[in-house]
C-alpha cells in the first residue's frame, strides 16, 4: 500500500513555470524506434488496455489447462492422473488464476481501453500510475505462477481458509507465493481503482454529465469503488497470514487463541464484493452491445445505472452467506439470508431491462449479440441457483458440493466471460482495425455454449447427489460416473471453443488484408467511442467532442420523425472524426512504472527466501519512486510544434495561465498543455 503514497510528490507537469527545472535525473524516454520498447514504457491507456487483455488471455490458457487437468482426473472413479497433493494445488491455482489474473484483468482491459474513450478523454488521470498498475498486475501474476517452478502452487483453495493455510498444514511455499503474489496484484488493482475513479469523476468531456455516461462507464465506476474498498481488506488479511507464515505471528494459530473465523470474515468481506466487481464490467459491456444490435435505446437507462449502484452498496452486506455452515449463529444466518435474497432484486432489474431492450427491437444476430444473449440466459440460470443459496437450510445441504461449483461457473463463465467474449468480437475492429470473422464467431459461440453447458450443468446434479468439491477422486457406485464423464467431455469442447477464438484472431487478421477496412463504425453503434477512426489513434479525439445527450453518436447520425420513425440525418463521413492529431500533446512515456512494478516481486522473493533480496528490491523501488516523482514532465522534444494545438483558441481560460506565465517556447509543456487540453496537465502525475 505504501507504494502509492509518494504519489503526491509527483510534480504535476505543465503548471511548472519557466523557472522550474527538473532535478538531474534520467530524462524520459523519447518515443523509441523499436516497437517493443514503445510498449514497455508506454503510458497510453489504450496500449495498457491491450496489454491487460493479452496478459489475461495468457493466464486464461494457463488456468484453462489447470481446469482440463482437473476434469481429466475426474473422468473416472479412482483417477490416477494427479496425486491428491497436486490436485489440491491445481484447483487452488485454477481458481486463483481465473479470478485474479483473468476475469479481473479482462475487466480492467476494457475499463482502460474504453472508459476514457466513452467519456471523451484523451487519457486517464494518472497515465504513469496506469502503466504501473498493469506492470504490477503482470509482476504479481507471474510471481504467483513461478510457484510451480519452485516447489508447487498454493494448495488451500482460492480462499485459503485458516488454519489450513498455516505452515503446519501447508509447509511448502505455495501459500506464501499466493499471499505475496496477490498482495502485488492488489496494489495494481488499488492504484488502478484510484486512477479510474478520478478519471471518471474529473475528465469527462464537455456536456458529459454523470447521467449521460454510457452504462459501461458507470459500471466501471461502481466496479472501481468496489475494488477500492475490497482490496485493502484482502490485503489486510493476507498480511496477517503472511506474518503468521513467515514471522510466526499468532493470528490464525488456534493454540494461541487465533480465530479461523477472522480469516473467513475478512476474506469474504473482500470476496463477495469481488464477485460483483467481476460481473459488473460484463454487465456494462452487454448494456453497450444489446442496444446496438436491437437498434433501440437501452430500456430504463437510469434503472440499470441505479441497480448497478445498488449492487455496489448491497454487495457489502452479503458476505456471510459463504459462511452459513461455520457456526455464526441463527441471527447472522437469518440476516445474511435476507440480504442475499434482496441483492437478487437489482440484478433481476438488469435482466428485465435487457430483455425489454430486446423486446420489439430489430434484432441482428451477430456474434457479439449471440454472446450477449448467452450472458443473459446463462447468468439467469446462475443467478437463480445463487438465490437458492440464500435459503440457509438448503445452502447447508449444498455447501462444498459441485452444486456451488456449477453456480459460480454459471455466473462467472456464463455471465462474465460470455460478456467479455461478446465484447471481444464487438470492440475488436475499434481496437485492432479489423473485424473478426463472423461465421467463425457464430460457430465459436455455439460451440462454447454447448461445451459450457455440458461441463457445468451436470455439476448441479452431481452436487445435489452429494459429490464434494475439492476432493481429488470419487468411488464408483455413487452414480457420479456418468455425469463426470459428461463434464469432462464438455470441458474439452469448451477448450476447443477457446482455441477457435484464438485461431479466429489470427485467421481474421490474415483475411483482413484482402477486405476493406471496417471504418470507424462497423456496427452502426451509439456511443461516442465509435466516432474515432479504427483503430483508435493515439490522441483519441481531436477535437474533443461535446455531448448533449445519452447515445450522443447515434443522435448525430439519426433523428426521430414525428411518427417515431428513424431517419438518417448525417452520414458516417460527416460525424466521424478525421483529424490527424496534429498538435495534440500527449503524456510522455516513462521508464519508472515498469521498474517500480518489477521491484515488488524481488521484495517478495526476498521475504520467502532471504531478506537480503528485500534490500535489493527496496532500493530499486526507492530509486524508482524518486525517479518517478522527479522526472521531467516531458520527453526531450516531446512538446515541440505543439504550440498550435487545435484548442489554443480558448487557452485563455486555462487554469494554468497563472503558473505558465513563462513563454510558450521556453517551457515546452506549459504552452502546449495549457492550450491543448488543460485536463492533460494533471494526467502526468
Amino acid at each position, binding site marked *: 500500500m*505504501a507504494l502509492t503514497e509518494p504519489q503526491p510528490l509527483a510534480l*504535476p507537469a505543465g503548471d511548472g513555470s519557466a523557472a522550474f527545472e527538473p532535478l538531474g535525473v534520467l530524462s524520459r524516454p523519447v518515443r523509441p524506434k523499436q516497437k517493443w520498447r514503445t510498449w514497455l514504457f508506454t503510458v497510453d491507456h489504450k496500449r495498457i488496455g491491450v496489454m491487460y487483455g493479452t496478459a489475461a488471455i495468457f493466464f486464461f490458457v494457463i488456468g484453462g489447462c489447470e481446469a482440463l487437468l482437473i476434469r481429466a482426473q475426474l473422468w473416472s472413479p479412482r483417477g490416477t492422473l494427479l496425486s491428491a497433493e497436486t490436485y489440491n494445488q491445481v484447483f487452488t491455482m485454477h481458481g486463483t488464476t481465473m479470478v485474479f489474473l483473468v476475469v479481473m484483468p479482462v475487466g480492467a482491459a476494457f475499463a482502460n481501453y474504453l472508459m476514457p474513450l466513452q467519456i471523451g478523454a484523451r487519457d486517464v488521470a*494518472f497515465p504513469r500510475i496506469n502503466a504501473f498498475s498493469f506492470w504490477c498486475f503482470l509482476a504479481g501474476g507471474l510471481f504467483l505462477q513461478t510457484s510451480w517452478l519452485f516447489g508447487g502452487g498454493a494448495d488451500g483453495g482460492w480462499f485459503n481458509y485458516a488454519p489450513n493455510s498455516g505452515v503446519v498444514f501447508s509447509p511448502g511455499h505455495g501459500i506464501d507465493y499466493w499471499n505475496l503474489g496477490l498482495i502485488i496484484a492488489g496494489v495494481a488493482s488499488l492504484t488502478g481503482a484510484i486512477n479510474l475513479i478520478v478519471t471518471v*469523476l474529473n475528465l469527462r468531456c*464537455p456536456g458529459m454529465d454523470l447521467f449521460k455516461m454510457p452504462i459501461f462507464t458507470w459500471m466501471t465506476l461502481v466496479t472501481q469503488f468496489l475494488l477500492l474498498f475490497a482490496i485493502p481488506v484482502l490485503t489486510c488479511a493476507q498480511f496477517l497470514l503472511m506474518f503468521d507464515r513467515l514471522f510466526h505471528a499468532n*493470528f490464525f494459530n488456534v493454540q494461541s487463541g487465533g*480465530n479461523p473465523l477472522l480469516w473467513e470474515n475478512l476474506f469474504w468481506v473482500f470476496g463477495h464484493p469481488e464477485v460483483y466487481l467481476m460481473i459488473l464490467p460484463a454487465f456494462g459491456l452487454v448494456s453497450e452491445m444489446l442496444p446496438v444490435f436491437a437498434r433501440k435505446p437501452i430500456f430504463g437507462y437510469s434503472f440499470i445505472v441505479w441497480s448497478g449502484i445498488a449492487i455496489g452498496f448491497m454487495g457489502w452486506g452479503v458476505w456471510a452467506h459463504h459462511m452459513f455452515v461455520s457456526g455464526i449463529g441463527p441471527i447472522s444466518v437469518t440476516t445474511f439470508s435476507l440480504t442475499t435474497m434482496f441483492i437478487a432484486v437489482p440484478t433481476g432489474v438488469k435482466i428485465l431491462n435487457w430483455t425489454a431492450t430486446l423486446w420489439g427491437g430489430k434484432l441482428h444476430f451477430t456474434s457479439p449479440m449471440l454472446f450477449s444473449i448467452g450472458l443473459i440466459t446463462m447468468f439467469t440460470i446462475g443467478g437463480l441457483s445463487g438465490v437458492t443459496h440464500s435459503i440457509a437450510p438448503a445452502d447447508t445441504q449444498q455447501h462444498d458440493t459441485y452444486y456451488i461449483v456449477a453456480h459460480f461457473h454459471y455466473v462467472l463463465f456464463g455471465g462474465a466471460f460470455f460478456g467479455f467474449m461478446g465484447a471481444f468480437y464487438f470492440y475488436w475492429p475499434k481496437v485492432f482495425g479489423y473485424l473478426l470473422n463472423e461465421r467463425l464467431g457464430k460457430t465459436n459461440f455455439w460451440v462454447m455454449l454447448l461445451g459450457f453447458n455440458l461441463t457445468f450443468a451436470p455439476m448441479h446434479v452431481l452436487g445435489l447427489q452429494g459429490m464434494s468439491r475439492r476432493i481429488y477422486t470419487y468411488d464408483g457406485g455413487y452414480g457420479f460416473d456418468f455425469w463426470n464423464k459428461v463434464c469432462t467431455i464438455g470441458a474439452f469442447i469448451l477448450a476447443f471453443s477457446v482455441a477457435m477464438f484464438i485461431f479466429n484472431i489470427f485467421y481474421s487478421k490474415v483475411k483482413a488484408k484482402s477486405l476493406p477496412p471496417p471504418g470507424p463504425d462497423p456496427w452502426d453503434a451509439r456511443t461516442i467511442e465509435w466516432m474515432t477512426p479504427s483503430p483508435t489513434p493515439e490522441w483519441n479525439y481531436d477535437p474533443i467532442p461535446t455531448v448533449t445527450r445519452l447515445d450522443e453518436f447515434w443522435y448525430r447520425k439519426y433523428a426521430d420523425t414525428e411518427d417515431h420513425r428513424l431517419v438518417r440525418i448525417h452520414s458516417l463521413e460527416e460525424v466521424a472524426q478525421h483529424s490527424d492529431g496534429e498538435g495534440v500533446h500527449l503524456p510522455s512515456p516513462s521508464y519508472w512504472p515498469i521498474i517500480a512494478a518489477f521491484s515488488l516481486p524481488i521484495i517478495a522473493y526476498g521475504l520467502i527466501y532471504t531478506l537480503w533480496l528485500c534490500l535489493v528490491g527496496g532500493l530499486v523501488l526507492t530509486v524508482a519512486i524518486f525517479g518517478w516523482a522527479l522526472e521531467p514532465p516531458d520527453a526531450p522534444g516531446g512538446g515541440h510544434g505543439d504550440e498550435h494545438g487545435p484548442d*489554443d483558441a480558448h487557452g485563455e481560460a486555462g487554469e494554468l495561465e497563472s503558473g505558465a506565465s513563462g513563454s510558450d517556447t521556453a517551457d515546452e509543456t506549459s504552452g502546449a498543455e495549457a492550450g491543448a487540453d488543460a485536463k492533460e496537465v*494533471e494526467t502526468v*502525475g
Partner: protein
Amino acid sequence: MAEISMALRDEFSPHAHIDHDTNTGISNTKLGMWVFLASECLLFGGLITTYLLYKTPVAGEGPSPKQVYDLGFTSVSSFLLLMSSLTMVLAVAAIERGDHHRLRTWLAATALLGSTFVAGQVYEFTAFVHEGMGYTTSRSSSAFYTLTGFHGVHVTVGIIMLVSLLILSLRGKLPEHRAETVEVVGLYWHFVDVVWIVIFGVVYLIP
C-alpha cells in the same frame, strides 16, 4: 491559426467552450489522494478489528499490551503527533502565502514531531520486548505490533515525503504554484494522525 481551430472544433457542439477545470473542480492529484485515503480506512479497519478481537492473550502466554504500556509516555508522544498536524497546516498556509522560509520551518517541524513519535514507538516496542511481550508471544502481541507497526510505517512514509518536500523547497524546486503538492502531502499526514487517534483510543484508552 484561429481558422484552423474553428474548422477542427466539434461542429455539433452547441457551446464550443471547453472547460479547462476538472469536472469536480478538485484537481486529480487531490481527488486521487482522497480516494486513496478512503481505501486506507478499510486497511486500518481490518487491523483494528483484528486487534479488538485479540486484545487479551490466552492465559499463560505473556503479558497483554495493557499490562506493559506506559500511558503517560504514549500520551505525550500522541500529543506530539497531533501537534504535527498543526505545523502541517501552518506549512500549507505558508506556501499559499508564498512564504518559503516559514514553509521550510514548518515542514521541518512537522517532520521532526513525526520522527519523535516514531522514535517513541521504537523505544516503546523495545521496552515491551524487554518486559516479555515479543511479536510472537501471543495473539495480542502479534495484533498490537502489527496494528501500531502499520501505523508507524505510514508515519515514516509521511516523514520521507515531508523531507523530500523540504529538500525540494531548499533547492528552489517548490514554487508557490505547487502549493497543492504540499497540501496533498498534508492530507495524507492528517489522515495518519486521525488514524492514530482511533488506534490510541482502541489500544490504550478502552479498558
